[in-house]
């Protein structure tokens, strides 16, 4: 088992899946990154940036046990099947970003077989710290990142998980979460965010580019618990072939959460007559001084737009491509990872036909 994982790891080194390793002179380990093999955290293969505390969750239980048990106990009764299964089967990583640290971290998932992996990252971003997190998982996983954002901290997460990924996050005062999930199909992404203290803000976005008979689901629950918090969700999916997308999102504003600003938008672009987009936006508001809205669109390329572009000299397929790019562009521009962005651009060009 151990040897097989190592072999696969070395194989990946030259494959470009892991850009940090492909650079000449790179060590056998990435510049910095957490390595999960078949869902299990492998500290000996991982490189943790200076200043971060990182260890297997089992080890963290001895020094951070009270914190962890508290968190799990609080969440478990309300959590869903996927995160519960993950917790039961995982041997995860615990990462603590101490106060006032800026760090970037990449999570690398290696799969040696076709078994379901259950990678888990238990994350705490300390006071006034900033963490940039990029996760690419091309294998069969039921992954979880559970993040606690301390006061004044910021977490930026870029995720491209090919199967199931759940993000749970709690936000304390003045903290900020910015998450972007991207998919080319086959995925189920869920985000559960609790805005616990004043002036925290959450931005949750997802971009799906689907073709063939692929499917993608996005589930969100944004819970406003404290007053003066902001949240925004933007979920966009472009669909071709017989692909299907599903969005189910909820904004829940508790009675105490006055002066909440919460917005949710789901846009779907159907590029074939056989693709199907399902959308279920929800608002549940129990406070009376709130700005909130939700919107959903399911549309095809507009004949008038195509005609306008064609009348200026663009061929029909060029016009389609430009309009599809126009639809995806605002979220693709937010993908700050060159390899991942390139994959999405290629997928976008492929569906614009």
């Amino acid at each position: 088992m151990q040897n097989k994982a190592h072999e696969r790891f070395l194989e990946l080194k030259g494959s470009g899946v892991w850009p940090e390793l492909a650079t000449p002179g790179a060590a056998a380990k990435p510049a910095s990154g957490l390595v999960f093999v078949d869902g299990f955290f492998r500290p000996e293969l991982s490189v943790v940036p200076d200043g971060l505390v990182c260890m297997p969750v089992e080890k963290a239980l001895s020094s951070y046990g009270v914190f962890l048990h508290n968190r799990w106990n609080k969440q478990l009764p309300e959590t869903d099947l996927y995160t519960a299964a993950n917790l039961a089967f995982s041997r995860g990583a615990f990462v603590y970003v101490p106060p006032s640290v800026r760090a970037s971290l990449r999570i690398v998932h290696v799969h040696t077989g076709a078994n379901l992996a259950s990678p888990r990252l238990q994350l705490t971003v300390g006071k006034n710290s900033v963490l940039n997190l990029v996760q690419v998982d091309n294998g069969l996983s039921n992954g979880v990142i559970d993040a606690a954002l301390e006061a004044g901290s910021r977490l930026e997460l870029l995720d491209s998980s090919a199967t199931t990924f759940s993000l749970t996050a709690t936000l304390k005062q003045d903290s900020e979460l910015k998450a972007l999930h991207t998919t080319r199909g086959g995925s189920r992404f869920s985000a559960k965010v609790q805005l616990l203290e004043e002036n925290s803000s959450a931005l949750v976005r997802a971009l799906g580019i689907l073709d063939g008979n692929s499917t993608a689901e996005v589930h969100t629950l944004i819970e406003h618990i404290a007053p003066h918090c902001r949240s925004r969700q933007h979920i966009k999916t472009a669909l071709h072939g017989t692909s299907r997308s599903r969005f189910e999102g909820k904004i829940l504003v508790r009675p105490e959460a006055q002066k909440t600003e919460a917005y949710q938008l789901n846009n779907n672009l159907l590029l074939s007559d056989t693709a199907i987009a399902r959308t279920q936006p929800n608002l549940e508001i129990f406070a009376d001084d709130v700005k909130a809205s939700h919107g959903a669109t399911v549309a095809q390329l507009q004949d008038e737009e195509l005609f306008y572009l064609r009348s200026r000299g663009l061929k029909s397929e060029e016009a389609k491509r430009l309009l599809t790019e126009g639809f995806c562009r605002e979220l693709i521009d937010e993908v700050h990872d060159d390899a991942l962005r390139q994959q999405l651009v290629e997928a976008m060009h492929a569906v614009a036909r």
Partner: protein
Amino acid sequence: MMLQIKNLHVKVNGKQILNGLNLSVNKGEVHALMGPNGAGKSTLAKVLAGHPLYEITDGEIWFKGQNLLELQPEERAALGLFMSFQYPVEIAGVSNQQFLFLALNAQRKKRGEAVLSEAEFERLLSEKMALMDMRAEFKSRAINEGFSGGEKKRNEILQMALFNPDLAVLDETDSGLDIDAMRVVAGGVNKMRRGDNGLLVITHYQRLLEYVKPDFVHVLVEGKIVRTGGSELALELEAKGYAE
């Protein structure tokens, strides 16, 4: 003869709009097409540009010796036909500059002309934008998105200046413009005139025709040209209306 329309009959959604329209435009001529609402003026503009919704039930259109009705909209553009939309479409996520760069080069490629580099294009665009009194920010803004009515029409004439067509069809380009915007738009139209290109100005009022002087004025009623005259006809129509 640059444009020749013979006995044109057009249906849209099963309803007959044009009923045997005849019109010829020679090189260098300015024609104005006037008429009451619903006469079929915009239908003619859309048919010339190749809108797929309009069904040609009879008649012919020849442009520069080619059967226009056999050409796709983009082929018509490359051949030198330009239509300024009455209601220019807003397109999110695509910058004006990117769109115009791709469109101009698509036309040039189709004509077998050298493709412009981004730098060459940007120079040309800046020059034409100055002509239309447009601020640089319109380059990076999404196509027509959030533009005022006047800005959209300016953007149309900017495209005309950029594409330098042999025949431009202006569909109610003056509607919704205040007097200052109209002067800029009319100035742009006049500056693109080469002496050998044609102009078909579709309008409701004779306002624009004070700036862009027509050689011929046609009156379209119920899908047919019922009267043709010189520029004085526009003044007469303005005074007396279209009713006989």
